Structures are given as structure tokens and as C-alpha cells.
């Protein structure tokens, strides 16, 4: 068994430098790597290009890196639940590239699968297609999209073991598996870090081969963006 366990957050971020392209798992605030984000804020790494479906909220998630001016560019499908994001975007401090959510996910998956590019129908006839190669398959136009290339991927899982195997919970899975596959260095934070042999190999969502560093997160605040409830009868 090759151990992927690291013991402090400095070790988790070893090699992370200014101007790198970095992936962050999560959908909204669900399944985001809270502990790694806090550590990057503390380290102060600047000019990051961040690939993440969303950009956090004021004071939480990637909002913490935005307000500290550590992000140069966001590559996302949906943003702007965040006043600081809006301010930086409108003032031109922050570059933003919006891409369809399925294309975002597939560009991650492709990056972690040795597939340099692929064709997708999403975005045909829209500004997303501008400047991209179009080909007709089965009578329908498709757009050429390229795999992402990221120096680091920061992901969050529910359970992990020393070997780096990961299991996700509920819809906190979202972008985490495909980003884990895509990172040149993938750092996974987990709620429960278990000895090798504790997880059923049949139940592993991401094999440890994709994970380079794993640690148990100190705190998982798990903020809820839209608390919606049903009435009790």
C-alpha cells in the first residue's frame, strides 16, 4: 500500500505557486474543499486561475480567496451569488470565462482521462462556440472543446483511506471525482480518514491512484445556501 497521508496543511500546498491553474470541487457550497481553501488564503498564493463550477459567496468558499485578491481568473458555469465577485468582475480586476456546466465537467473528466479534446453539441449557435471548430456528427453541429490542464486539484470527499481511495456523500460528489482525476497534483480532504482495508473496495468512487495527498479536514462548516423545508403536517 502506498500511503498518501500528509500531516499538515503546508505539506498539502507544497508546490502551489503564484499564476497556477487550480481546480476546486464543489457545487455551490456543497462539497467544497473548505480546509484547503482556508490554507491557500493563509499561504497567500496570488494570480490563480480557478476552475470551479461556482465562485463561493461573500466570506465563504472561494469568496475567501476573492476578497483577498488571490484569484486572477475564474472559469465557471454559474457565478455571482457574491457581491465581491461582482465588484471585481465589473471593475475589470477579475477575468471570468463562463462555460456550459456539462462542458466544464467533461473538460475535467477528459483532462483526467488522457483525452485531449472532444466534440459536444452544447453551445452551438451561441457565443460559447465563437472561434471554435464545428463539425457535423449525425446531422448535428458539435463544438470542439479541450481538456483542462490543472497543476492542482483540491477536492473534498466524505471518507478516504490511507491509500487515497475516496467515497463521496450525496450531491457533495458533483465535480470532485472528475477534478480529482484531472489534477497533476490532487489534494483530497476528507471527513473521515481510515486505515487501508477499512473501505470496501467495491464501494470506492475514486481509486487512490488519482489522489496524491490526503488529509482529514479540521473543520467542515458545510454552509447551506438555500435552506428550504417542507411543512410538517
Amino acid at each position: 500500500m502506498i500511503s498518501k497521508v500528509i500531516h499538515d496543511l503546508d505539506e498539502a500546498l507544497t508546490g502551489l505557486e503564484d499564476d497556477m491553474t487550480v481546480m476546486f470541487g464543489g457545487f455551490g457550497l456543497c462539497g467544497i474543499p473548505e480546509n484547503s481553501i482556508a490554507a491557500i488564503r493563509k499561504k497567500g498564493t496570488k494570480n490563480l486561475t480557478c476552475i470551479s463550477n461556482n465562485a463561493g459567496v461573500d466570506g465563504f468558499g472561494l469568496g475567501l480567496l476573492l476578497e483577498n485578491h488571490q484569484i486572477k481568473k475564474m472559469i465557471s458555469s454559474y457565478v455571482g451569488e457574491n457581491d465581491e465577485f461582482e465588484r471585481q468582475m465589473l471593475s475589470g480586476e477579475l477575468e471570468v470565462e463562463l462555460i456550459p456546466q456539462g462542458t466544464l465537467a467533461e473538460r475535467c473528466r477528459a483532462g483526467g482521462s488522457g483525452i485531449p479534446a472532444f466534440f459536444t453539441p452544447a453551445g452551438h449557435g451561441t457565443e460559447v462556440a465563437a472561434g471554435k471548430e464545428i463539425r457535423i456528427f449525425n446531422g448535428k453541429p458539435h463544438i470542439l472543446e479541450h481538456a483542462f490542464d490543472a497543476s492542482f486539484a483540491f477536492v473534498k470527499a466524505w471518507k478516504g483511506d490511507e491509500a487515497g481511495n475516496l467515497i463521496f456523500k450525496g450531491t457533495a460528489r458533483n465535480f470532485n471525482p472528475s477534478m480529482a482525476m484531472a489534477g497533476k497534483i490532487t489534494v483530497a480532504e476528507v471527513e473521515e480518514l481510515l486505515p487501508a482495508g477499512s473501505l470496501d473496495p467495491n464501494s470506492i468512487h475514486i481509486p487512490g491512484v488519482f489522489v496524491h495527498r490526503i488529509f482529514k479536514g479540521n473543520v467542515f462548516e458545510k454552509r447551506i445556501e438555500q435552506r428550504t423545508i417542507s411543512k410538517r403536517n
Partner: protein
Amino acid sequence: MALDKNGIAKRIAQELQNGWYVNLGIGIPTLVANYVQDNIKVEFQSENGILGMGPFPLEGEEDADLINAGKQTITSLPGSSFFDSSMSFAMIRSKKIQLTVLGAMEVSDKGDIANWKIPGKMVKGMGGAMDLVASAENIIVAMQHTNRKGDSKLIEKCTLPITGLGCVKKIVTDLAVLEVSPELGFVLRERAPGVSVEEIVSKTSGRLFLPDNVPEMSL
């Protein structure tokens, strides 16, 4: 009388068929889940990674790890499954989801849809809308017939940035049910209770075909 949001959702729920997997967008489309007829089984997909989405949780049972694409807390039902985003869009692109219901700012009489961006305003992004409309074979738009200024949202050519071309099959508004036909443009199929054909004609700016008989919706 024009339908309210729940009325629109209720009418759309009549389109659901037994055994369908359905993706509901944010806003009015989400309400469709409240009006599924008792005699059919459908499963709702949310593109952030769940099939078999259930109602909102009871107070105290919210789980931060279980949300829908609108970031609302939800529940799962027996038979439901979780998966990652790339698999979620795999099932969307490969047409495993039989119906997509989403909102729109404009729909053209060719079935083009614009629903993600207003120039000059803060752009939030397209989320999964472009992937959904590019692949879904059955797309129903739920929206008001006119915008806040009173201008028709059913027009000849979209003026706002496009989300997808030639993809909308049916539109349910507060005033009417319309189909989109490549030859005829908007085809008026049903009127909201008490709404006249004349009112719908006056509030539709795209090409509109009027069949001889346009019944009232039965809700």
C-alpha cells in the same frame, strides 16, 4: 384569467408520462414536481448529481450534502441514485432524460431560446442550460407571456444572447399553451381559462398560427 405560477406548473405537469426521467429548471419549473398525477411514476433529475429527487426536508432534517441545482436542500426517495457531474451530463447528452422544463426570457417562432444573459447586466452564467437545450429532445418552456414592460416574450427572432437554437417544442405561459412548428411558427393549442384568442394574438409578436378550435385548458 391568466394563470399564476402554480397554474403554469400544474398545466405542465399534465405533459408528464409514466416512466419518464425529468429535469426541472429553477423557478416555475421546480413547482411542476408538486402536481404530478397520482397514477404515474416519474423521476426527477437534478444536474448536480441526483436522480429520484424528493421533496424539501422537514425542518431539522436538512443535509448540507443533499441539494438540488438551485442549491436548495432536498431529500432523496427510495430508488434514487447519486453521481458526479460528468455522468450527470452524460445522461443528459445521451438523451436518457425524456423531458426538460426550463424558464426563458425570449423564445423565437423557430424554437430558439434565450435565457442566460442580458447585455449590460451582471451575467451569472448559463449553468447547465446550454447542455440541456442542445441535447434534450423534448423541451417545454415555462414563462410569462410578456415581460415586465409588457413586451411579448414570444418573438420572431431572439434579441438576447442565445442559449440554444431550434430546440423548444412547447411553451406554457400564463395565457396559453403553444407548440413550435418549423413551418407555422407558434401554434396556439390552448387558452388559459377566460383568456381570449385576441388577447393572446395581441401579446404574441412572433408568427402565430391559429387553428380553428382553441380550447380552454382544463386544470
